[in-house]
């Protein structure tokens, strides 16, 4: 019951998503410090959530929304772990 134009629009938006992905990946590779890389990783996982949600529309399979939920869950745990790493390495031993 998805309107056919929605699938086309989702495919176009998926292609457009390559631009923010490239920008965040550039920061991931170039970013001078560890903190910059962790921020870029946070951004990349947000883009992955959006990518999974748009794929659900483009393919018409609602199961991809579950993938978006799981990526969002993992994003939180990963960011907390990296923050703990940065804080422990940064603080006095």
């Amino acid at each position, binding site marked *: 019951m998805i309107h056919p134009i929605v699938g086309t629009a989702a495919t176009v938006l998926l292609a457009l998503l390559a631009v923010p992905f490239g920008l*965040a990946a550039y920061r991931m590779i170039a970013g001078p410090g560890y903190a910059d890389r962790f921020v870029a990783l946070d951004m990349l996982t947000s883009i992955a959530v959006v990518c999974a949600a748009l794929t659900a529309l483009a393919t018409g399979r609602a199961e991809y929304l579950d993938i978006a939920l799981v990526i969002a869950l993992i994003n939180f745990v990963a960011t907390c772990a990296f923050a703990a790493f940065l804080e422990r390495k940064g603080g006095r031993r």
Partner: protein
Amino acid sequence: MITATVGIALLAAGLVFIFLAAFGVARFPDAFQRMHASTKAGGIGATLVILGVLVATGFARPLTGILTIGFMLLTLSVASQLLARAAYMSGATIHELNGRDDLLGVLDREKAPLEERSVSAESDRS
């Protein structure tokens, strides 16, 4: 048809926010300003896109979508607060700080960022 239009509008708005966040992450000069762009704009963008997918599919999986939105709104702020605190304590560079540093004396802060310290530690060891 009306759900398709509203859904596509929400998707496009979300994509605009994601674009702004990614430009901020690529262009801002230090980690804290990049975090400022990525967390707010990225969170709003992803939330809008998932809302758009929900509307466009006629709420095919309402529970998953609403759980995702609620979880993202709850955790993105907490995660970015943790990351910002850790970045400040690890001594990440702050670009052109005007005025005084209000966190001085509240949180321990290293003199140099982690990557510079780890380089000097390796050269000490050798």
